[in-house]
């Protein structure tokens, strides 16, 4: 529990900090997260979003520090995912199930599918304006950013945007605003983008263009996770523009796993080859790096080399895990190359090349496969593979 924070006159942050969570559906969050919910008080009292179900008592306690939760007149649900809707049934039970629940068209469908109940759904869409007492809200549907139901709520008088998961970060700490935390928050925001929103980058571009056209004056952005952007909301908008363009930088990754250290030797040599061409490189062992941290590095990398031994005619299980995860998030504009050691059949390189093709990554070389343990000639081929990948990246960046 924390003392509710007044964001503007009568508008409070009443959410909860989850200090303990580390695994957020497969995304590693070393500093926990927050589930932000917002209470707008006035002639009517409106709750925007809720928190994960195991925090419902804490949410109610936070609200109680400001007012009796029973006096909430309406709820706005920007997003159905359970970290934001999990306490909805508790809230609706408390305030009366006949109270209006404002959400998008897909929100109404998805909430029904989650709670199996007919609440008093009031569907709102892009451009709709709603006046409740002395407060005005407008809405912008942001379908597939990042669920079909996702929407933004904007308060034109206060110039506050409640942006659901967009612009969020998984961080729980003693800081609540961008001006308190400074640059420290940006790697968290970047990781969030890479792991949650990257897949929908073309939609982010469209959304940013739409918001620019609407000429919205945004004084504060309140996402559903992490800190609130009040000093400089444009900073995170500019970052989203950059990340969603997926423009590659002069940086390569070598992602690998190994069985008897042969592929490790190859990976280190590929890395040297990349560095010999003055391209920045990071060597990432999939047993040491969490898939979500690899994903964050993928975001702006221009080139990716993947190494896997062949195990039982396939690629290594951990490499398959990481590739499945990366593939789902659809990173674009990558050059790629594969390598790996094998004992008899050696399918791994072929499988990796097929994965690159399916991800629409440009494979720059057929790849290097080595029987058992690499000798000097084999390592020379690995070095050349790295150098070729780096040269192609430099050519692409200079084109």
């Amino acid at each position, binding site marked *: 529990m924390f003392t509710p924070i007044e964001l503007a006159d009568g508008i409070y942050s009443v959410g909860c900090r989850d200090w303990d969570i580390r695994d957020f559906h497969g995304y590693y969050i070393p500093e926990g997260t927050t589930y932000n919910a917002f209470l707008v008080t006035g002639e009517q009292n409106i709750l925007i979003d809720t928190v994960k179900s195991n925090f419902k008592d804490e949410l109610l306690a936070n609200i109680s520090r400001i007012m009796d939760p029973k006096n909430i007149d309406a709820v706005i649900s920007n997003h159905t995912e359970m970290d934001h809707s999990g306490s909805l049934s508790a809230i609706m039970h408390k305030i009366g199930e006949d109270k209006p629940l404002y959400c998008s*068209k*897909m929100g109404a469908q998805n909430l029904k599918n989650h709670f199996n109940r007919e609440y008093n759904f009031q569907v709102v869409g892009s451009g709709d304006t709603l006046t409740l007492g002395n407060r005005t809200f407008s809405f912008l549907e942001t*379908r*597939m950013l990042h669920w*079909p139901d996702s929407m933004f709520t904007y308060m034109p008088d206060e110039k506050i945007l409640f942006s659901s998961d967009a612009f969020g970060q998984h961080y729980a700490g003693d800081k609540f605003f961008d001006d308190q935390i400074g640059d420290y928050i940006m790697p968290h925001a970047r990781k969030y983008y890479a792991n949650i929103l990257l*897949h929908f980058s073309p*939609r982010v571009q469209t959304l940013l263009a739409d918001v620019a056209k609407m000429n919205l004056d945004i004084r504060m952005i309140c996402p559903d996770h992490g800190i609130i952007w009040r000093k400089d909301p444009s900073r995170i908008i500019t970052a989203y523009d950059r990340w969603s363009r997926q423009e590659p930088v002069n940086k390569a990754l070598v992602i690998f796993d190994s069985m008897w250290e042969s592929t490790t030797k190859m990976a280190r040599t590929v890395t040297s080859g990349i560095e010999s061409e003055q391209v920045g490189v990071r060597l990432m062992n999939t047993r040491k790096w969490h898939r979500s941290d690899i994903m964050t590095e993928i975001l702006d990398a221009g080139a990716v080399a993947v190494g896997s031994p062949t195990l039982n005619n396939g690629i290594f299980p951990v490499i398959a895990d990481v590739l499945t995860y990366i593939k789902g998030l*659809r990173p674009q504009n990558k050059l790629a190359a594969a390598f790996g050691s094998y004992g008899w059949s050696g399918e791994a390189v072929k499988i990796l090349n097929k994965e690159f093709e399916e991800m629409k990554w440009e494979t720059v070389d057929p790849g290097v496969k080595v029987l058992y343990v690499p000798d000097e000639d084999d390592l020379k081929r690995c070095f050349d593979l790295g150098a070729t990948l780096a040269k192609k990246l430099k050519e692409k960046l200079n084109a």
Partner: protein
Amino acid sequence: MDKYECPCGYVYDPAEGDIENGIDPGTAWEDLPESWVCPLCGAEQEYFEKMD
């Protein structure tokens, strides 16, 4: 011509097509190229349902 709805809520309306992705207005559902997927969520055509 029939409209088709994606599980994510996107509706393919043949009258509008999907210009951003190279589908001209007037293109019937049956005439969409196999490679066309939902422009919002990426679901393949087999997941769409015909609307009443």
